[in-house]
């Protein structure tokens, strides 16, 4: 191979490597994750996101304004008809409710389940609260309608899929919103202690 040919080969190899690295960088959100939820967690770690000011409807028809001020809130998204991930989320929030009371965090850390399902009427929300044992001073459930629903799903990066076997399916997680109404972190559903640790740390920051 001539000297010119060798230079061309090196240049072609470098160009190929640069293009390959750029494409992989794009696909993995800057080499941070290979899944949608992984990229969401990585993004939030470096760039918290403001939770939109929206109004939710509770089972008794009252309006609940988001974000909840003066409390760190652990938020999950549910449909009362979901019999897949929502059951796992429910178990995690039950454990969180117990830990919040045991550790004296009532009033500082709150739990909020947001229903995205338009069919979740007052009766269904009440049924959800009763079967999971929601203590109103810690854990509330409310429904998001219309624009509020769209804004929240967008901000929290929730993707909903219709499942013929299990009602609605969505990417489940425990989202931590700080006292200033910023979505700061996301934990896997089973990571109850991690979620509570993050929430507790946020209650201690001035």
């Amino acid at each position, binding site marked *: 191979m001539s000297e010119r*040919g060798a230079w061309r080969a090196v240049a072609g190899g470098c160009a190929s490597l640069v293009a390959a690295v750029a*494409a992989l960088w794009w696909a993995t959100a800057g080499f941070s994750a290979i899944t949608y939820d992984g990229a969401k967690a990585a993004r939030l770690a470096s760039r918290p996101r403001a939770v939109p000011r929206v109004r939710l409807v509770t089972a008794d028809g009252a309006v609940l304004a988001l974000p909840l001020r003066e409390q760190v809130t652990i938020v999950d998204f549910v449909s009362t008809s979901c019999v897949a991930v929502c059951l796992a989320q429910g178990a995690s929030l039950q454990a969180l409710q117990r830990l919040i009371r045991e550790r004296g965090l009532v009033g500082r850390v709150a739990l909020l389940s947001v229903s995205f399902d338009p069919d979740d009427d007052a009766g269904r929300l009440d049924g959800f609260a009763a079967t999971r044992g929601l203590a109103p001073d810690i854990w509330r459930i409310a429904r998001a309608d219309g624009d509020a629903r769209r804004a929240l799903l967008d901000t929290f990066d929730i993707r909903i899929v219709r499942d013929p076997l299990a009602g609605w399916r969505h990417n489940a997680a425990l989202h931590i919103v700080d006292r200033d109404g910023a979505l700061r972190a996301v934990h896997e559903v089973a990571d109850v202690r991690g979620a509570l640790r993050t929430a507790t740390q946020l209650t201690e920051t001035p």
Partner: protein
Amino acid sequence: MSAARSGVLRVLLTAFPAVLLLPPVRAWLEATMTRQMLLQIPLVIAAGWWLAALLPRAWHRRVSAWNPGGVAGLVLAVALGGVVMTPRVLDAATYSAGADALKLACAFGCGVAAGASWRPAGIPGQAFVVGNIAWMLAASGVLLRDWPQRVCAAYLEQDQRIAGTGLVLWALVLSALWLVPQLRRRRASPL
């Protein structure tokens, strides 16, 4: 096949990628993980490969000066193939038109790069690439099939399991597509 028939076939094959870009076709292909991974992406890669095959010899000669042995092109093709199979990209394609366009461009680029590098790579290079791709496809397929959770936010577990099984089958098909002609050739001229 007559020259006229072969001409018609060439035109149809060349125009085929445009059909894949039609919004209803794209929406149908991306409605399930199985169709996106096992049908849409391989078809777009094949379209890129076909374009490379249609380009004149002079173009191939010019490119191979920058791509001796097809190494640079195959590295790029393997990387782009990995990119379009990333769960995050499969998800993004379902809700972002821009991400979908980039994904399709990567798949097409993968086909062009592989098509332009295949002959220069020779049998050892081809064997190395086919062996690695088949292994990666099969491993990804088994992982997708057995993973207890959904890896894509847009698709359900059942769909994920079928896509995983399909990837394992694709690994076998790709290996056979390359291996069978090599064995035939070898049998025809054992030396």
